């Protein structure tokens, strides 16, 4: 099974690599390949389309200004499940793509315990065993993955409605769907923050696909070590020395 997924991922990664390209300059590392970046932005696009149309359904009195963008309330409502479906499908592909790096490890548990220090800014560097993704990223990934399952089930019930599934199923799904959306919404604020202004140098990973080596040894030391074979702390100290030498 996993080999089949691997083969599929490898093939598509290869195909996308031929369509697009990723340029890695001196002092940089390849972070996200074209395929990954494509999937990410498709997920993001559908997420926001579903989110904004969803807002129009969730609280029309507050968000009714969104709905004209999509052609009015009923059309927003009509398109919302399709957007949602797009989100789930692209995220599903991303999940296949990322299933290995997102696998939870003991280091992630440790990372989570250490979370307060990272949020508080006391730890400038990530713990040395932080790999390609840290525990927080993985947690969000799995939150979205489980959220997608909830969306899919409750969304289908809401889509086909009380006539097919009965009014109680709809009434319960309605709540679960909304809760799932709210959790994801909360998460997405953090995700955007950390990938843009909250953690400089991150954004380009999903734009150009490459990150600086400094970024890599700071935030994903284990990954740095894995791809470069060098000690991240050592590399950092060396860079500091060079900088102060200037």
């Amino acid at each position, binding site marked *: 099974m996993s080999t089949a997924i691997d083969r599929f991922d490898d093939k598509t990664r290869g195909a996308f690599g031929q369509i697009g390209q990723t340029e890695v300059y001196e002092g940089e590392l390849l972070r996200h390949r074209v395929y990954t970046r494509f999937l990410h932005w498709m997920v993001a696009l559908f997420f926001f389309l579903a989110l904004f149309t969803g807002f*129009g*359904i*969730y*609280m*029309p*009195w*507050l968000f*009714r200004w969104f*709905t004209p963008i999509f052609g009015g*309330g*009923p*059309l*927003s*409502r*009509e398109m919302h499940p399709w957007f949602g479906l797009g989100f789930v499908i692209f995220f599903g592909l991303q999940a296949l793509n990322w299933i290995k790096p997102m696998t939870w490890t003991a280091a992630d548990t440790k990372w989570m315990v250490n979370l307060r220090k990272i*949020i*508080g*800014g006391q730890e*400038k*560097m990530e713990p040395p065993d932080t790999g390609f993704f840290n525990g927080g990223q993985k947690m969000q990934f799995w939150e979205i993955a489980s959220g997608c399952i909830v969306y899919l089930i409750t969304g289908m019930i*809401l889509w086909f*409605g*009380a*006539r097919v599934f009965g*009014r*109680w199923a*709809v*009434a*319960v799904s*309605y*709540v679960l769907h*909304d*809760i799932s959306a*709210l*959790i994801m*919404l*909360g*998460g*997405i*604020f*953090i995700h*955007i*923050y*950390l990938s843009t*202004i*909250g*953690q*400089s*140098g991150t954004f380009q990973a999903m734009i150009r696909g490459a990150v*600086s080596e*400094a*970024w890599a*040894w*700071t*935030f994903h030391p284990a990954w740095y070590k894995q791809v470069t074979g060098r000690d991240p702390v050592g590399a*950092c100290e060396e*860079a*500091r020395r060079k*900088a*102060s030498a200037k």
Partner: protein
Amino acid sequence: MSDRKTLQIKQISGHSGPAAGFDMQRDYEVCKLIDTTICIGCKACEVACVEWNDMPFTPTTFDNTYQTMPSTSYHFWNLIKFNEHQREDGTVQWLMRKDQCMHCADPGCLRACPADGAIVQYTNGIVDFQQENCIGCEFCVSGCPYDIPKFNPATKKVYKCTLCSDRVGQGLEPACIKACPTGCLKFGSKDDMKFIAEERAKQLRENFGFEKAGVYDPQSIGGTHVVYVLHDAENPERYGGLPKNPVIPWSYTVWKWLFKPVLGTFALFGLLGVLLHYVTVGPRRAQPEPPIKERES
């Protein structure tokens, strides 16, 4: 009591503030009385409804019944449901019940509806859909214990019986009432209709041998503005699935009026949190950072 039956709004679906016009004018609750014991299933009410509301004719198919179609539709709001009930002694009772919006005092559709002003309840009890505000989410469909709101795939909005609010607002009776040839449909104040219905049920019990005759005005949803006289009030399900104790899913109430705003606020806390993080702790940077020049303390 004023004779005017103007449509003063009592409740508005998905509305954030107080309903405009609420409690501005004295009004009384209206009610439709349907006496199933003298309904002859003539379908005059069906035709009157289609004609008054100018709805199109739809092709139907034979379905082993006298019933026009299986259930009400977005352009057929008034349907007599025909049911054959075999009594214990083998005799058959042919039950006919005019099915339409019940105009609940506590309307499940309105509870479920998220759209601002798509469903309004007037102080006279009429629950009316305002299609210009409807977003077609169909939550009302699941909120309704009577399977009344129906989605029109063409307009992508939901429709149902309005109790002819357009007529009632002008002091007229609903079209179905006007068309009923036997008087099994009556229209008036809730108090009057309830009185007539109870009297009739008493008559059925005392003079016609229907010991279980009674009035259907379910208190589980605060009563309805359409009440039935039934031969057997203990088994309303026989009349084409009239629920004995209609309920509105609790999730709508709990979710919509409590957790929805609260949790929505929590989601916003995510935004607030990252903002505070940025201005207090500040962003993380790749190491080594430039040397610190000064630190506020």
